[in-house]
């Protein structure tokens, strides 16, 4: 088939050389989304996560474990629905896909919500949590205390994420002498559990790594599911090196946090926790000890100076008057020598 003439093509496709403002492009996307029949009146089943609400709307993410979709329901509409949504609820949503022009974001705005039951994912996480608790993996006796003065800290996180820089800056802010070994890991999606576990194993096998931070920035709860898997939990639990988690802000406690030796809220907090402040340690420990040593020695010296003066005074007080005994011994020796010389002369021996 012959190519369509240029004029005809322009009528069908937008001018590739046209430069649009962000608003213009977003408007264009919005019109495509609104006009697409396939995106209107859709029905979608998934698990509700990361749910939060305010006076005007209810926001949550619908996920099937592999993919996720932001959703929003206006508060007045939600009140009219016979549905009680919470994190972990499995629900069928019916509504339109909407494109928010100002924010450049797509979401599903449901007009109908049918609660199917508790989500499979949430139930599976709770089963795993109970099992690991029974095994004693969360027990305090299993926790190792990270060293206060590590020479090298290992970090398992995405090399492209902000978390690694937050951790690095926090560590070197406390102590610039510490080496940091960052292992790249996929921290969300289906490959994440294996990637994170491999990173932990790798750093744990490095003899010179004194502590490991497993971190990522905040995200929706469904993005954090890798940290609720047995694979990651096992890697943390079996590590000989102390592990500190820094998985980001979340209301729910993650299994990785519970198994870890120490759980912190943010990557920055993990970095600050793992390394003692050098200046603070010098000021609070070393300088007082230096002063104590100086004071102890000064007191010791003064005691001994008094003691020496006392011994000298006692010696002087108890010493006999007149010349010292050595003089008498020398005088006697000289007299004996003279006596020998005289006796020799008298006998004619000399």
């Amino acid at each position, binding site marked *: 088939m012959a190519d369509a003439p240029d004029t005809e093509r322009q009528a069908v496709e937008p001018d590739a050389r046209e430069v649009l403002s962000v608003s213009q492009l977003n408007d264009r996307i919005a019109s495509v989304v609104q006009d697409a029949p396939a995106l209107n009146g859709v029905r979608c089943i998934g698990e509700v996560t990361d749910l939060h609400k305010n006076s005007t709307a209810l926001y949550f993410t619908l996920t099937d474990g592999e993919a996720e979709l932001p959703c929003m329901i206006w508060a007045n509409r939600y009140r009219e629905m016979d549905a009680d949504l919470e994190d972990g609820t499995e629900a069928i949503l019916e509504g339109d896909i909407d494109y928010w022009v100002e924010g450049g974001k797509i979401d599903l705005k449901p007009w109908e919500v049918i609660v199917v039951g508790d989500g499979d994912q949430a139930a599976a996480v709770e089963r795993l949590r109970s099992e690991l608790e029974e095994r004693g993996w969360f027990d305090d006796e299993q926790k190792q205390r990270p*060293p*206060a*003065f*590590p*020479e090298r800290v290992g970090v398992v996180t995405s*090399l492209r994420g902000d978390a690694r820089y937050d951790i*690095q800056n926090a*560590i*070197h802010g406390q*102590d*610039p*002498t*510490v*080496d*940091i*070994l*960052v*292992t*790249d890991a996929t921290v969300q999606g289906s490959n994440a559990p294996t990637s994170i576990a491999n990173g932990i194993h*790798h750093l744990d096998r490095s003899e*010179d790594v*004194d*502590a490991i931070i497993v971190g990522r920035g905040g995200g929706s709860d469904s993005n954090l599911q890798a940290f609720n898997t047995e694979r990651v939990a096992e890697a943390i639990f079996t590590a000989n090196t102390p592990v500190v988690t820094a998985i980001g802000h979340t209301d729910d406690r993650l299994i990785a946090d519970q198994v870890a030796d120490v759980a912190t809220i943010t990557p920055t907090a993990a970095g600050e926790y793992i390394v003692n402040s*050098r200046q603070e*340690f*010098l000021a609070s*420990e*070393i300088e007082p*000890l*230096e002063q*104590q*040593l100086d004071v*102890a*020695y000064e*007191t*010791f*010296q003064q*005691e*001994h100076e008094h003691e*020496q003066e006392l011994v000298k005074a006692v010696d002087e007080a108890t010493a006999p008057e007149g010349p010292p005994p050595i003089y008498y011994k020398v005088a006697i020796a000289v007299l004996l020598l003279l006596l020998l010389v005289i006796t020799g002369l008298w006998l004619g021996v000399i």
Partner: protein
Amino acid sequence: MANDAEIHDRLSRVEEIIEQLDADKVSLDEGSELYEEGQELLTEVRERLHDSEGDVIEIQ
């Protein structure tokens, strides 16, 4: 390896020295030697804390 053990050992020895000086059961010469030892240990701790700049190593 972490510096904890080495720093802890040195600080413990300095505390022992302070106790010995406080107890005043050593001669003046021995006391002077202990004081010098304490100062050396504290200097070593400071040196450990001011070691060279740390590196950031990436592993893909």
